[in-house]
């Protein structure tokens, strides 16, 4: 299964709407990095509104893809993390401290614009 990546001006938008298995998560990581490379996008929003579980593996893949994109010169914001998911992540001991987040897609785009203008 492939997660669609949409391009909007200089941004890439991704909405994850499936229960992520490990393989799909890894594939997504690769796809996103190639898409950044191809498109020259400077900002990425990954929307997690429909994701109702993030375990330690998925958290690692998401955290890594933020760092990897950053290395390539694109800023990533994670948006829409559900309350139950946030509580579970903290129980797991995963704080994703260096990962930019926003409440929803709209706030995420605002955050990207601010970060990229600085």
């Amino acid at each position, binding site marked *: 299964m492939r997660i669609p990546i949409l391009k909007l001006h200089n941004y890439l938008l991704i909405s994850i709407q499936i229960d992520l*298995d490990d393989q799909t998560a890894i594939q997504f990581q690769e796809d996103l990095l190639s898409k950044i490379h191809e498109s020259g996008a400077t900002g990425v929003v990954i929307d997690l509104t429909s994701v109702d579980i993030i375990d330690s593996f998925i958290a690692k893949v998401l955290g890594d893809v933020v760092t990897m994109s950053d290395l390539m010169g694109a800023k990533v914001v994670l948006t829409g993390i559900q309350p139950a998911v946030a509580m579970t992540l903290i129980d797991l001991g995963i704080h994703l401290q260096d990962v930019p987040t926003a409440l929803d897609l709209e706030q995420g785009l605002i955050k990207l614009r601010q970060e990229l203008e600085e």
Partner: protein
Amino acid sequence: MDFQSCVNIKKEWDIVGARQLGRDIAKKIGFGTVDQARIATAISELARNIYLYAGDGKVCFEAIEDMNKRGLSIIAIDDGPGIEELSQVMEDGFSTSGGLGAGLPGVKRLMDEFDIVSEQGQGTEIKVVKWLR
């Protein structure tokens, strides 16, 4: 309410199958959204450990009752290589697979009860319980 259902863990996709079934059962027992997420996440970690380290095993679910409490018991069993240093795997940040090392200590925090029995060369059995509040 006493029934038991199991999911065999052989392929990577079985991790998703196990947590989906576990979440459905948790929902039927009456757990709220947050506890459903905790339970599904714990199952995901247990099933992934089986897949990564033992290659083959199963995760079983059982609705349980004790006094006036109701809950969900989950048992993850494999006959893999076993865990060499139990105290090490219960430390936050310890991993032999390049992961976050959040797995087992995380599962312990997500659930109310946690028991682990592991013998080298014999396999590992982890039993966790979440009580309905």
